[in-house]
């Protein structure tokens, strides 16, 4: 790697880091200088301290929320890809069912969640279902689009070679749809977490299986604002981690050949 490229990569890490340091330092300074009470805005140091002090409680909740989100994401991937494969088989099927997929997407999850929670007895199952409803749409729509966006010439070549439907699907349409699928996956990973948190808010489950949303709710009621901030920090970190993981997966799968993952200078 050349010196310039190395510097550019270093800058990409250092620049946002510098912004974070400046902002946190400013926050800390303002809170200290104006003696802002801890129940309004806690200082960053206080948040970190709370995160450490309440670690058993918070990380247990994080595990619950992350478990729901990851389970939902896995289900959304499997079901979403399966639905997209069915949609891609025929325009009629897609035309008949796609509006309902959109309906599911545009209806706010907070308004469906209570119903699901009433209908499904097991709370964890209900939470997973809510998160799936939110996360599945980008996977369905992106993968369907990808399966349809086949290079004309290649499609003709397959026809000329008298390829079966199955051969065309596995050798041409599925590999061609991968970049689209991964685009959908990145969006879905964030949505799965949002779906899980929103569903927890609506369900308001406490006790053993309490997720981060419940901790936020409870901390708000108790005016335990440092804990609220600490829980928020954990949710944000979990979201970033899930996004990074799917982005990494995408790079792993596409880096060899697809434009989106190629180095800029090529």
């Amino acid at each position, binding site marked *: 790697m050349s010196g310039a490229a190395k510097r550019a990569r270093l800058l990409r890490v250092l620049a946002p880091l510098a912004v974070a340091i400046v902002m946190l330092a400013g926050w800390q300074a303002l809170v200290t200088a104006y003696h802002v009470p801890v129940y309004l805005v806690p200082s960053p140091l206080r948040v970190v301290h709370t995160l450490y002090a309440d670690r058993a409680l918070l990380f247990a909740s994080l595990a619950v929320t992350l478990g729901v989100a990851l389970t939902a994401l896995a289900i959304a991937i499997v079901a979403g890809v399966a639905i997209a494969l069915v949609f891609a088989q025929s325009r009629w099927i897609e035309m008949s069912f796609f509006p309902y997929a959109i309906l599911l997407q545009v209806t706010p999850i907070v308004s469906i969640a209570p119903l699901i929670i009433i209908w499904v007895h097991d709370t964890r199952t209900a939470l997973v279902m809510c998160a799936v409803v939110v996360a599945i749409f980008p996977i369905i729509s992106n993968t369907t689009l990808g399966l349809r966006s086949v290079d004309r010439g290649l499609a*003709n*070549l397959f026809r*000329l*070679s008298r390829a079966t439907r199955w051969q065309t699907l596995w*050798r041409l349409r599925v*590999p061609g749809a991968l970049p689209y699928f991964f685009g959908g996956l990145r969006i879905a990973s964030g949505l799965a977490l949002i779906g899980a948190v929103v569903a927890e808010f609506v369900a308001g489950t406490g006790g053993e299986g309490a997720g981060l949303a419940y901790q936020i709710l409870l901390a708000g009621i108790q005016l335990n604002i440092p804990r609220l901030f600490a829980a928020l920090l954990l949710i944000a970190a979990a979201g970033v981690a899930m996004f990074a993981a799917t982005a990494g997966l995408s790079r792993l799968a596409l880096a*060899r050949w697809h434009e989106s993952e*190629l180095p800029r200078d090529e």
Partner: protein
Amino acid sequence: MAAADLAAEPAVGAPLIELRGVGRTYANGTCALADVDLDLRRGEFVTLVGPSGCGKSTLLNLIAGLARPSSGRITWRDAAAASIRDARPRIGFVFQSPTLMPWARLATNVRLPLDLAGVARKAADRAVADALARVNLTGFAHHLPRELSGGMQMRASIARALVTDPELLLMDEPFGALDEFTRQRLDAELLSLWSAQRFTVVFVTHSIQEAVFLSTRVAVMGARPGRILDVLYIAEPYPRDDAFRLSTTFAAHAHRLSSRIADAGAGELPDAAAGGGRAAARGARPGQASR
């Protein structure tokens, strides 16, 4: 050289395909091709020349069986020449762009037609190595398409078309997007492949020079509706090389072809006179085509 010599018809092989009154009209009523009669013989190198929208690609797709004619019929002759057969022969198709699968290495791309036909892996790999050697891409089997130049990608595309050992090779402006030097080199390479194996070629191009250099026969096509206006023989011996490109014979053929295209354009003038702008565009066409 006298014009009579230029137009001499060479000895030809057994018939391969007969097109009789073939037309193609799209669902919206556009007539892409009307009433085409054409006989293709084994070992011929036929070039389709004409302006954009004259149905060259449509004709190629009809021959390939990628589209059905809306009128007329296409008949295949087997090697015995006398009898008609139902099945299409083995066809290789080279598109305007390389159309390689970007996720697959070159060997996998070239092997595709064999894989789809269910050819055993070992035999297929031998055929792939052979095809890559024929287009001078030995050693690039494990490269991805994006790692190759445009000319190399096109050669890989030709290797893929040749890997099934086709009787008929259809090429739709294969070198149109390449620079002039690469195009001339690939033209020469294509001719030497064809001379060695004598498959039949139908080649679509915009370039008069390319048509003269490659073909045994040139079909001049016109637009609205697309049809064959004239057929010319280029009765010059092979191998043809760079010296042929620079010869007066070459220039004479090119001149004859471009004036035929000009005639074809003039022949169209009366029915186009209604639309003044269009008539002017047609008048300008032969000059553009001869570049």
